[in-house]
């Protein structure tokens, strides 16, 4: 269990959760957004050159 990030909460009540959880979650979201900006800089280099052709060429047979 040591490998898991435990998020202990005191109460299972829903109303309490909203108040307690949202600020932390939004902060995490802001951090992600800042990272996304860096990522967007990188994406233009990583994204396949010709998007249209790349997408068109990806054809799979059905499976299962």
């Amino acid at each position, binding site marked *: *269990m040591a*490998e*898991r*990030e*435990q*998020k202990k*909460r005191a109460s*299972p009540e*829903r109303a309490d*959760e*909203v108040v307690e*959880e*949202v600020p932390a*979650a*939004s902060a*995490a*979201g802001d*951090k*992600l*957004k800042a*990272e*996304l*900006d860096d*990522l*967007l800089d*990188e*994406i233009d280099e*990583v*994204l*396949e050159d010709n*998007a*249209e052709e*790349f*997408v068109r*060429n*990806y*054809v*799979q*047979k*059905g*499976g*299962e």
Partner: protein
Amino acid sequence: MAIPKVCGIETEYGIQVVGGDPNPIAASSLLINAYAHDVARQQTEWDFEDEAPGNDARGFAREGSMPPQVETHLVNTVLTNGARFYVDHAHPEFSTPECSDALECVRYDRAGEVVLIRAMEAADLTVRDGSHLVIYKNNSDGKGNSYGTHENYLMDRAAPFTRIVAGVTPHFVTRQIFAGAGKVGAETSVHDGQRVDFQLSQRAEFFEEQVGLETTLKRPIVNTRDEPHADPHRYRRLHVIVGDANLAEVATFLKVGTTSLVLAMIEDDVSGSRSLALADPVTAMHEVALDRTFSRPLRMADGSTATALAIQWELYSLARKYADDRGLECMGAEGIGEEVLSRWENVLNGLETDPMSLAGQLDWVAKLQLIEAYRQRHGCAWDDPRLAALDLQYHDLRPSRSLFARLDTERIVAEASVVAAVVEPPRGTRAWFRGQCLKKWPTAVVTANWDSLVFDLGADPLRRVPMMDPLKGTAEHVEELLNACASPSELLDRLSG
């Protein structure tokens, strides 16, 4: 009491050859052979004895439907972690070994990704024509062709199948609000007449029936394949085909964990005062996929309406009460059941108040956030091919290209434990016996499948060791025995003596 929810995930990966022979069957074979010969150095083949994918859980056979064909001529290997790695139709497929709980399932699903990455690298070294393979962990090509990510859950045969169908359908229709992998646009006719920018699920629009045996045509929300790979008098294996392939670990954990809990409640015949039966589950599933506000009212069988989020809250509350009344022993290792409940509650709260706050946990949110940021920066419309390219490349497994790998999503299994799971079997199921025997005596185990191993001891006829109980053959049961045996013949003598 509900029986332990042993579980596993089978993933058919997308495969593309860049600059070479585009035949996906040849490419998948090359990929898996490269892994078996050059990486794992192991060649035990799959054994098709006892496979019966055409049996129907409703108790009747075939009924004019098309049971899947088993293709015995294609490459098919068993790994020392107890997994199966093979060519299924035109895709490489990795089936995790039987896992004891949702967290272990995440670990082995991730180990599958590592296997595919290593296989891809090994395959690229064997071809000399300048071509290379690209593997995608997704479920469609955006052109109407879908391939599956299937879950399997051990269930008590005593639970009537009709109760399973009724109990699990509302969950399967609505769990995509956190388990969906997200998709740009639409590719079937189910949303004709509507503008579709983005869907929560890759798979939802491919489902056309509520219940049935098929997996490739007229896909049903509840699949009736009755092939337990275990003692059929005691066990059922619920084969679940509605899911998307997830890259986000939290999404996989919730997909498997919440489903295990819902199935445990069905076994124990627990239901709430309000019926969650939908009037038209198939249409509801399509509608949920389009609704990023989770506020669209779905028609219920009793004439009322409910939103996907309300149905999920109802299931969560029921599960919370079930846990308090009966405990969560069936959910696996200590604390797993509680972790499922607390994360389930957490994502439902997040979806209700600020869905984008879940970008670090859920695939569809992570993908949508990336796409929205890209749209803002480049000012592109939803039909811009660059967005479809972003969608596809989110699922690219190559570390140098994967967009998912560049996002900072929460990890719930340690990387070292994932790498260990590439070769080590889970300790708490029969996968342990399968994997350890393959490791110890790779040449003596000639074939293997989910419920037996076949040994070749030289002079004698081949000897089959049945493993009809997924909960036996665990490390606890046989570790001492295996350590004490110097040879496979000694093992077989002691097993039969």
